[in-house]
């Protein structure tokens, strides 16, 4: 019984500017590694073919090195790979595909449909009906032609398309390309492999979005899978299994601190951060000096462990207690300045000046603390 591995939206060449350059680089690299993972899974599960439903590349003008790396990563599976261009890597008259062709980087087991066509695999007993995107913006349903395309008898009809199923996906969608929700039925498809939606999602019994194999944004919707599709015989319902391919977990935390134990809670949570975490933390509220100290240290520790950790503390106000101030030996006008800065955090109308006040307060208290530790002369 033929089986396939269905994947899509690799977005190779994408960079993540919200992270530091090193983190961004690693995260981008991970996407190619996901392809290698897919190849490995395809080989391990001995599938007949890998279906890649568009957006292989994130842009048209990808560097040569990246192109080659990608196709190299596919070496793990020597069976056929069937690919269609999506909206990011549409098959324009000049595209990343023509570039790859010129470079001779396309492997021989790659079946690339740059125009809408049927590719038959007689030995494997299936035909791939391909609806690649050939324009920068497509407004019509390219899968409509599937209804009229004939395939040889006895072959499974497997559709590959990239777009948004009408009426199903209410939220943000990547492309304008519409797809009729009953296409699998009207085109008598045994399976319709879709791309464009980055989360793994079932549309109907025969129609699935595989989602992107490696998560690429903080919003969830369950990415990080490839789909193992097993079809017993033509016209039977396919059995679809999710295989984990994603390595990193993207999380967003928002903590509002009010009392001391809030800070402790945050610290405990940070201690659990591991190497597969891509974490964005937003802190608001207030803390005293010792709390701030603890948080800063915990963040630094977690930052060293995580794949990436960004912490936005702009909204966190520093409220030193009287003990804090005394401990710093901030007497006389130093103490007055600390008090004034503390108050400014709440009073200023302008959020920017509040931030400046907080930062100033942090600098001053840190300096005083250092002097205490160093036993500076009074």
């Amino acid at each position, binding site marked *: 019984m033929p089986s396939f591995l269905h994947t899509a939206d690799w977005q190779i060449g994408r960079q993540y500017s919200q992270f530091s350059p090193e983190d961004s680089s690693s995260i981008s690299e991970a996407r190619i590694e996901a392809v290698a993972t897919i190849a490995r899974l395809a080989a391990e599960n001995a599938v007949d073919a890998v279906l890649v439903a568009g957006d292989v590349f994130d842009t048209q003008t990808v560097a040569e090195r990246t192109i080659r790396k990608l196709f190299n990563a596919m070496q793990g599976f020597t069976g056929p790979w069937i690919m269609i261009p999506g909206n990011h890597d549409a098959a324009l008259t000049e595209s990343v595909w023509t570039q790859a062709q010129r470079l001779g980087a396309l492997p021989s087991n790659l079946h690339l449909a740059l125009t809408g066509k049927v590719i038959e695999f007689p030995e494997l007993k299936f035909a791939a009906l391909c609806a690649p995107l050939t324009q920068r913006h497509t407004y019509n349903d390219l899968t409509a032609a599937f209804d009229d395309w004939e395939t040889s008898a006895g072959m499974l009809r497997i559709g590959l398309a990239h777009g948004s199923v009408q009426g199903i996906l209410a939220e943000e969608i990547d492309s304008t390309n519409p797809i009729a929700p009953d296409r699998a039925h009207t085109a008598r498809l045994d399976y319709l492999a879709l791309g464009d939606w980055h989360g793994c999602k079932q549309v109907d019994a025969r129609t699935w979005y595989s989602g992107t194999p490696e998560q690429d944004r903080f919003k969830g919707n369950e990415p990080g899978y490839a789909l193992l599709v097993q079809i017993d015989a033509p016209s039977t319902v396919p059995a679809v299994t999710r295989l984990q391919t994603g390595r990193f977990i993207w999380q967003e935390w928002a903590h509002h601190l009010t009392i001391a134990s809030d800070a402790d809670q945050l610290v405990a949570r940070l201690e659990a951060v591991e190497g597969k975490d891509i974490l964005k933390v937003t802190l608001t509220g207030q803390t005293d000096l010792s709390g701030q100290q603890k948080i800063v240290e915990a963040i630094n520790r977690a930052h060293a462990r995580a794949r990436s950790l960004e912490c936005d503390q702009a909204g966190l106000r520093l409220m030193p207690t009287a003990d804090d101030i005394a401990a710093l030996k901030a007497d006389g006008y130093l103490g007055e300045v600390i008090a004034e800065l503390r108050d400014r955090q709440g009073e200023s109308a302008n959020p920017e000046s509040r931030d400046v006040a907080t930062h100033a307060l942090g600098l001053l208290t840190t300096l005083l603390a250092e*002097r205490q530790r160093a036993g500076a002369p009074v």
Partner: protein
Amino acid sequence: MRLTKIKLEHVRQFRAPFELANLSSGLNLFTGPNEAGKSTVVRAIRAAFFERYKTTSVDDLLPWGDSSATPTVELDFEMGSQAFHLRKCFLNKKRCELKAGDKQFDGEDAEQYLADLLGFEFAGKGSSKPEHWGIPGLLWIEQGAGQDIADSVGNATEHLRKVLDQSVGEVASTQGDAVITKIHNERDALLTSTGRPRAVYVEAITERDALRVRVAELGDRIATYQAQVDQLGKLRDEDLTDQQTKPWESLRAQQAEAEQRLAAIETLKGHLNADELAFAQLKDKQKLIAEQLQAFDAQERDLKKRELAFEEAQSVAVAQKGVCEIRDAARLAAETEYELATESLAISRQEDLRADLTRSAKQAQSRVATLSDTLAKAEAEQGNLLGLQKAIRDSQIEKTEIESLRDQQTKLSEIKIRREVAATRLRFNLLPGQSVALNEEVLSGVGDRLVSSDTTVRIAGIGELQITPGGTDLAELAREAGELFASHQALLARIGVTTLTEAEARYVLNQQSRSDLKHCEKTLASLGPDGMDVLRAELDEQKALHEDATNKLDLLPPCPDPPAMALKQAVTQQTEAKVALETATSAAGDAKIALATVQTQSEGSERERDALLGLVSAPERKSKQADVNQNALTTKAERDALEVRIQARKEEVDAARPDILAQDVERFKRSGDQSERLFRERQTSITVLKSKLEEAGAQGLEENRAELSVKLDSAERRLAEVKLRADALDLLVDLLDGKRAAMTKRLQAPLQKHIQRYLQLLFPKATLDIGEDLVPGLLTRIGGRGPVSGQFAEMSFGAREQMGVISRLAYADLLKEGGRPTLIIMDDALVHSDPQRLQQMQRVVFDASQRHQILVFTCHPENWRSAGADPVAISAAG
């Protein structure tokens, strides 16, 4: 603090140990003339505290000429209840010992103890400088430095603050200054003094901006690339369409069809052209015929014209003849007039000449007379001249000659006298009728003779007596006389005279003649400057002139009657007549010429008329005219017919619109060419564009931009961090500085109070502002017209000295309140103050001395008489 004893040894002029003891706890006055050692004492005290004992830069302490000495200073002082003893030795034996109560310090420990105690520092290297002197630098006023308070205060500020901090207590901050400094440093690392970004901050900005530029640049290139990709797609589609439809083929077909139709029309047009040509020819022929007819008519008209012309010419000729006659007559009259005028002129000329000649003759005559007269005179003079010349020649005698003669004569006389003197006198007295002979002379009667030479006297009948006079001289004299006589005679003979008298007379005559000659020559010259001959010639000339004129006069005809008119008038008359004659002659001439012309014209007219008459009357003419008329009619008919045919053909051609057809041909041709050309060009564009895109595609533009965006965002975040830090540091600086300034202001209050108290003693009701840097600023006094303000720095030297002393005393009071040691030293500190101010200052200083020990060194003890202290004299001898 109170100094009790000062001891110097081997310091400058103090070779022997010098001591000042029993110093009072208030004002101590030290006096002495210049060079007595006052400043040395001050220097010694300063060196003992400020200079490190090991320093080598205190050579000035050495006694003069003794570089092996060890300058030593010992000071005893009290602070509170503790007694201190300091001993420092410099240069050759370096030592430093301090006893503080019962504690003992040596070397650098001692020095540091003192520095902390008094509030000053040591120099790291080299000699101690003002910036190290701290509080003592402020209170120990050096010579000539009293008015300079800003620097001393500046150098003491930190120490002052420390003191004041402690005295003011909690308001200040224990680590305030250190923290402020640190924060300032942190801030200055990011911001300039004017608040502009620098160093890391400005680098972050630059980096971010650079990345922005690059990202934008890449954005542009990507946009271009994408546009070009779209363009390529479009071109390829167009190319495909063209290849399928080949639009130029249909265009060319249309072109061919249009050409065919056009050709047909062209033929038709050809026929039409031929007809039109023929039509034109007929038109020309008609024109010719018309011309011919016209020519006939013209001839007849012409004949009539000529008839008229001839008649006119004739009448003109007749008129002109009349004119000629009149003018001839006029000319004759003018001629007669002219002749008369010429005659009259000739006579006038003649009379004019007569008058002229008469005048000439008279003139010549008178000149002759004058000249003859002059000539006669001249000739007479000439005769005179010749006579005189002869006389001169005759009486020629040189001056030298006459002088010689005179000389000789004189000499002869002299000799004679001598001879006579030397001579022998012979007196005789003879009887009458008796005689003797003396030489040859016969003597008789009575007489005497001088005998100067051998003489013989003959007496008849007796014999001879020979007398030889004695004396050798006589002979000599006689000889001499003889010689002289001879030459005298010779000269006389040469000259041609016999005696000197003659010679004299001659000489006089000669001289007179010479002068007469000169006179004569002068006279001659005046008569005839150019000479006699010229005179004679002139005379002859005048004579001739006279003769000539007279002759001419004789030749003239007799005087006319009536008398002639004036020559000028006659000339004018004649000229006018001439002009009139000329005018008349020319007029007559003109008239004649005109007549000839007119006559010729008339004849010409006649001839013309006759010729044309002949032509017109010829018989062949009539028949020719008839022929021509006939021609005209036929030609017209032909033309009309052709016109109709042409019109018809034209309509046919126009209907076919050949112009539009031609345009069509052109249009289709061009379109076809264009279409094909476009197709080829597009293919070239496609190739070019394709290779461009391949090249651009290979550059990974979007991936690069994505990478750069990562960097850019990172740079933005970093910049934001740096900015936040800079802003925070700026805020801290503002707040901290503000607080500290406020604190300082509070500290200024007590200082203000102390200064005010002293100020009242000098300027009642005045106020002095103290700046933040604790330096005196604005002084406000009550002047004659109300408050007057002036900055401390702008006051006079004397005033600043006084203010300088007052300020320092105020600081001292403040320090004392803070429990710090205050010793005040004034080394000639009020040298520029006037007597009245000095009085006031003495009050001030006395008041201060109630609280502080003050050492005053001065060479003007009289200025401190009422200060309440006994002066101690300083001298090296004691």
